[in-house]
């Protein structure tokens, strides 16, 4: 099949993309259609009211410039670049957090207040707001709120704020393409599940018993229309 045929099948809506994916085409066909599926920019299955909602949220701005700058600094403290991948801001985690503030309004006050609490602490300790502090001053304060089990009771506001920020930064990073690659997630592609790889089974001291092997689906049977014998068993 050429690309036009793929697109025709994909976009005409008469025959679904996956139907031909799942009905015995070549690996190359499969790879190509996956790419086309991914490259399509037809939203992502939104109803009209959802598209309007998202457009409205994206047109609004929550963080001030200074707040967004603080979020970026915190994001890269929480998920920095290392020798395997980039940092939180490399994948735009700050934009994701900006979106979530509007998407989930309960985040707004606690985040804005938390950023101000951080500034208040810096002003008291170092005589200047967070962004004007040196890296070591910033980390001195972050160390007081980043470890919930050993934080002082009067740091609890900061602990709560930082826990939430850690959650949002981490989830923003690990749901980005770079984060998914770093995690090593291998799925979201058409294929056939034929059980745990033998080597992995061995490493965990597990195996499939004969009953399981006998009764489970075999790859070569998947496109055969199902039939049963008189005892209700598939043949």
């Amino acid at each position, binding site marked *: 099949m050429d690309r036009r045929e793929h697109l025709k099948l994909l976009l005409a*809506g008469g025959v679904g993309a996956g139907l031909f994916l*799942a009905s015995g085409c070549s690996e190359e066909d499969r790879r190509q259609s996956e790419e086309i599926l991914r490259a399509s920019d037809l939203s*992502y299955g939104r109803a009209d009211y959802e598209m309007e909602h998202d457009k409205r949220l994206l047109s609004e701005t929550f963080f001030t410039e200074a707040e967004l700058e603080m979020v970026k600094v915190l994001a890269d403290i929480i998920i920095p670049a290392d020798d395997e991948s980039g940092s939180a801001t490399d994948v735009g985690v700050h934009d994701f957090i900006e979106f979530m503030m509007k998407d989930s309004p309960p985040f707004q006050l606690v985040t804005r207040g938390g950023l101000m609490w951080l500034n208040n602490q810096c002003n008291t300790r170092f005589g200047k707001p967070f962004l004007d502090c040196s890296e070591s001053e910033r980390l001195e304060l972050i160390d007081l709120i980043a470890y919930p089990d050993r934080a002082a009771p009067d740091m609890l506001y900061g602990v709560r704020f930082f826990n939430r920020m850690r959650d949002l930064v981490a989830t923003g990073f690990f749901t980005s393409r770079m984060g998914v690659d770093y995690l090593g997630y291998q*799925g979201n592609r058409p294929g056939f599940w034929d059980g745990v790889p033998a080597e992995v089974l061995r490493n965990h001291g597990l195996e499939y018993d004969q009953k399981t092997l006998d009764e489970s689906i075999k790859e070569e049977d998947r496109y055969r229309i199902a039939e049963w014998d008189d005892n209700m068993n*598939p043949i």
Partner: protein
Amino acid sequence: MSFEMILPKEKYDVAIVGSGAGGGMAAKVLSEAGLSVAVLEAGGFYDPMQEEFRTQLRWPWESPRRGANTVRPFGDFDAAWGGWEIEGEPYLRNPGTSFDWFRSRMLGGRTNHWGRISLRFGPKDFKRKSIDGLGEDWPIGYEDVKPYYDRVDKLVGVFGTNEGLEDDPDGYFLPPPKPRLHELYIKRAAEGVGVPVIPSRLSVLTRRVNDERGACFYCNQCNRACNVYADFSSGTCLVQPAMKRGNVDLFTNAMVREVMTDSNGLATGVVYINTKNLQEHRIQARVVVLGASACETARLLLNSKSAAHPDGLANGSGVVGRYLHDSTGSDRMAILPALFNRERYNEDGVGGMHVYTPWWLDNNRMDFPRGYHLEYWGGMSMPLYGTGFGMDSMRQHISDQFGNPSPNGGYGAGLKRDIRTLYGSTVGISGRGECIARYDNYCEIDPNVVDKYGIPVLRFNYTWSEHELKQAQHMHETFEEILTAMGGILVGEKPGADREYGLHAPGRIIHEVGTTRMGDDPSTSVLNQYAQAHECKNLFVVDAGSFVSQADKNPTWTIMALSWRTSDYIVEQMSQGNL
């Protein structure tokens, strides 16, 4: 494709309200018998094969909220439109009681995103009162429904295995997929403590069942609705095929507000409001079939008052809305250190569990009357909103290569690595059990409130009894026993009596049934054994409203089997001139 511009026929043989499991099956069977059918769906047209609706095979970053559930209650890629709250369509609860009502306004209704767990009721499930004295027996038994379960298996497709279990009957199963790694750990641990684990039973096509639907390609996303129709939903597998074969007119965005009756009290059709332009329309029919969902059907009957039916249609008994019951549900999670830093490979599998545990104990030796089954979850699934959360309490369970435990919380490259270490190492168990149907759990029409279409809304009254509380308490004993036996570190506290043993609010499992129950006695039931109204012979119910008791089984397979049985009865009665 637009189905809104259809000019209705002057009169249909059958008007079906709702396009979910029950309505869809009725539309298929009745239209294939040659009857003219109108299907009325309150929501819009939906077809996961069409690109504009596709959420399957999307990546998390395609959603600006990374799949979070701020818009769709089960996440941004979930197929269901609607949810626990729908703007302009409120419902109420009596003080001191709770009920959460999930509604999906779309072709196929809630079958678009359900868990595809497809369990037959067993012989005992139809006769529970005879066993434990509680609730009521059904007017029919397993032998009446078995032929229809067989047909549903073959038509719709369900994988599983024949295990010869008395109350979890064998069926025409497709071969199941092999267990995933965490499921092998679960199976070994559970069997070690005397809890059997068998292949799950999901309506996912591991083999094709016809030329119109593809085979599963293992993306683990059935809740997003399948582009190749390799899982069951009513729109893709029942309504659309029936439309292609003819005799079915589908009216979408059609909110039915009343069943019309004549002076003799017989149904003559339905009144609906077009939700797009708010105009009222009428559909005339010889027979009216309600498949709007248990609570919506009860609401419709109660709102259909007339001289012949002053308390609501078919409600002379006062039983409409009564005996509402949902499955019980509670859950627990653990971290499995044996899976830290596990080998990476694609283990998406089907959308849901590959193994499960049907109820395995004898209630004679328990302090609660009905059973529950166990559903298992875990694995290296797609990272979505929530991935990486909770390191302020879970990180302590991870150690570095020298065995030094990490601190809770923290930041930096070490945190990043620890999240990767933890990925795919959590496992969980959900218990889903049977609630006893009680007269005192009900929905009724609120006297003060209407929705945006001017239709009076429901008010719920539902509490758990000690039966459900004791069952949930037992679930948690089981969860801990299995999770601990597999070497898991339990997350969170075991919920006690103060938290109702972790029971989800009624309605949360989305298995609500019983509001128009069937029975032989018209003074204590709404429908006869064919789901035909005692007081209105050309009115039928094909959703789970007809259920007398719900079993510890997910209701969809039984909804479809009973809908098929009712549809056969309608065809027969019509051909005999009785309708």
